[in-house]
């Protein structure tokens, strides 16, 4: 019996490789930098969250950009690997967006006095979170890999087309209803150690995002192979484990 090529990768997949280790070290360094920065004048220590908040949302955007490219590549080539990449990148994008929102809320409460404001940027981030969560839910709901790839790439294209429209509509809506200005992170002065902390944050979170997408992609490929093996009813992976019934005791097989 020929073992599927993927089986050789499987035991390794739990082990951390060079990229994973680099990402972890970089993350530790970046967090170290964030704590080296002096407390912000008005906000105090909570402003350190900025060095997490900004890099993670940028990684989220980058992940959604990867999804976009992968969806287009899938539609052009019809190769399942591209669809699997699109799914893996969207997962990382959703996780990072959710993480950014939570970090933002923790930051906002002591700073603004509320967890949430209906600024265009915040609203959009939440919309994007839900839109891509829907994309993932759709992927999860379709079992057949090819069908899933086709259907979800249609939704992927739709998201690509609609997100900018949503973006502008929300900005327009906020322009009409603009109240008093709120304290914005970009008013903070960035120099010296602060810039270093920010750069370290970008590098570290990018590495983490990249490592996670790579892992997710590999997992999706393995799952894809497994699904195909299970689905091909009489194929070796599905049929071999089913044996002839043991009728009238274990000695007798049935011919």
């Amino acid at each position, binding site marked *: 019996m020929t073992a599927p090529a993927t089986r050789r990768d499987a035991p390794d997949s739990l082990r951390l490789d060079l990229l994973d280790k680099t990402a972890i070290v970089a993350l530790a360094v970046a967090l170290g930098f964030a704590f080296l920065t002096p407390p912000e004048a008005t906000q105090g220590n909570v402003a350190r969250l900025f060095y997490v908040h900004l890099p993670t949302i940028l990684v989220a955007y980058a992940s959604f950009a990867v999804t976009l490219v992968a969806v287009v590549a899938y539609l052009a080539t019809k190769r399942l690997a591209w669809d699997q990449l699109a799914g893996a990148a969207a997962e990382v994008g959703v996780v990072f967006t959710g993480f950014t929102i939570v970090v933002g809320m923790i930051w906002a409460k002591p700073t603004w006095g509320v967890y949430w404001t209906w600024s265009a940027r915040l609203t959009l981030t939440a919309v994007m979170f839900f839109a891509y969560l829907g994309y993932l839910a759709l992927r999860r709901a379709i*079992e057949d890999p090819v069908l899933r790839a086709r259907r979800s790439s249609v939704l992927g294209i739709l998201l690509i087309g609609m997100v900018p429209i949503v973006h502008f509509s929300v900005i327009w809506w906020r322009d009409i209803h603009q109240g008093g200005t709120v304290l914005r992170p970009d008013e903070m002065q960035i120099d010296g150690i602060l810039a270093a902390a920010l750069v370290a944050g970008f590098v570290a979170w990018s590495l983490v995002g990249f490592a996670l997408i790579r892992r997710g992609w590999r997992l999706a490929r393995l799952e894809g192979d497994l699904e195909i093996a*299970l689905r091909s*009813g009489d194929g070796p992976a*599905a049929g*071999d*484990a*089913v*044996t*002839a*019934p*043991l*009728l*009238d005791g*274990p000695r007798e*097989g*049935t*011919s």
Partner: protein
Amino acid sequence: MTITPPVVELAGVTVRRGVSIVLRNVDLSIQPGEIVGLFGGNGAGKTTLLEVLATSLRPTSGNAAVLGTDLRGERRLEVRRRIGLIGHSPALYPELSLRENLVVACRLTGAPDDRIDDVLAIVGLGGVAGRRGRECSYGMQRRTEFARELLLAPELLLMDEPHSALDVAASGLVEHLAADVTARSGAAVLVSHDRERVEKISDRSVELVGGTIGGGGDGG
């Protein structure tokens, strides 16, 4: 004449569905140890008769008793666990593994669950016990149902098209399961279009024509 009460005793059973009469004045008596083949064309009432025996359908009129229990009374619920049922299409929880499906069957009926691995091995599914129901082929799901009935050890076994979806190696399971039930002084009813195959393992044939029992006659 038998001293032990019959497993199935139907007298003048009539079933109406809406305006149409599906079963008309059916008399049927099945003794312990009997394997009965039930035949008939489409719409002859085979499945309806099976539903009556499975206690899911109350007869409109007539007397019906299974394992000594009147099917029109409230004690129907208790007799259900003693009636095995392998329906037309496999009934498994798709999200649960084959093994888990059997565990649920044991827990809900109070049957001991220490034989699950044995019966899975008997039906040839020992190697795929952990696979989810929805990942299994029709034939594997069917085999799981046979494993379930071996486990729950019913006294009356009802099978609707039991050979469908079973491969050559597995089709011996039908006879094995029926023999398992009759060895415990139970009885089995096999509904099938595959008359030749079923007659080989049954003691008697019953033919339904237009909702009444006709033709057929007693076999060996």
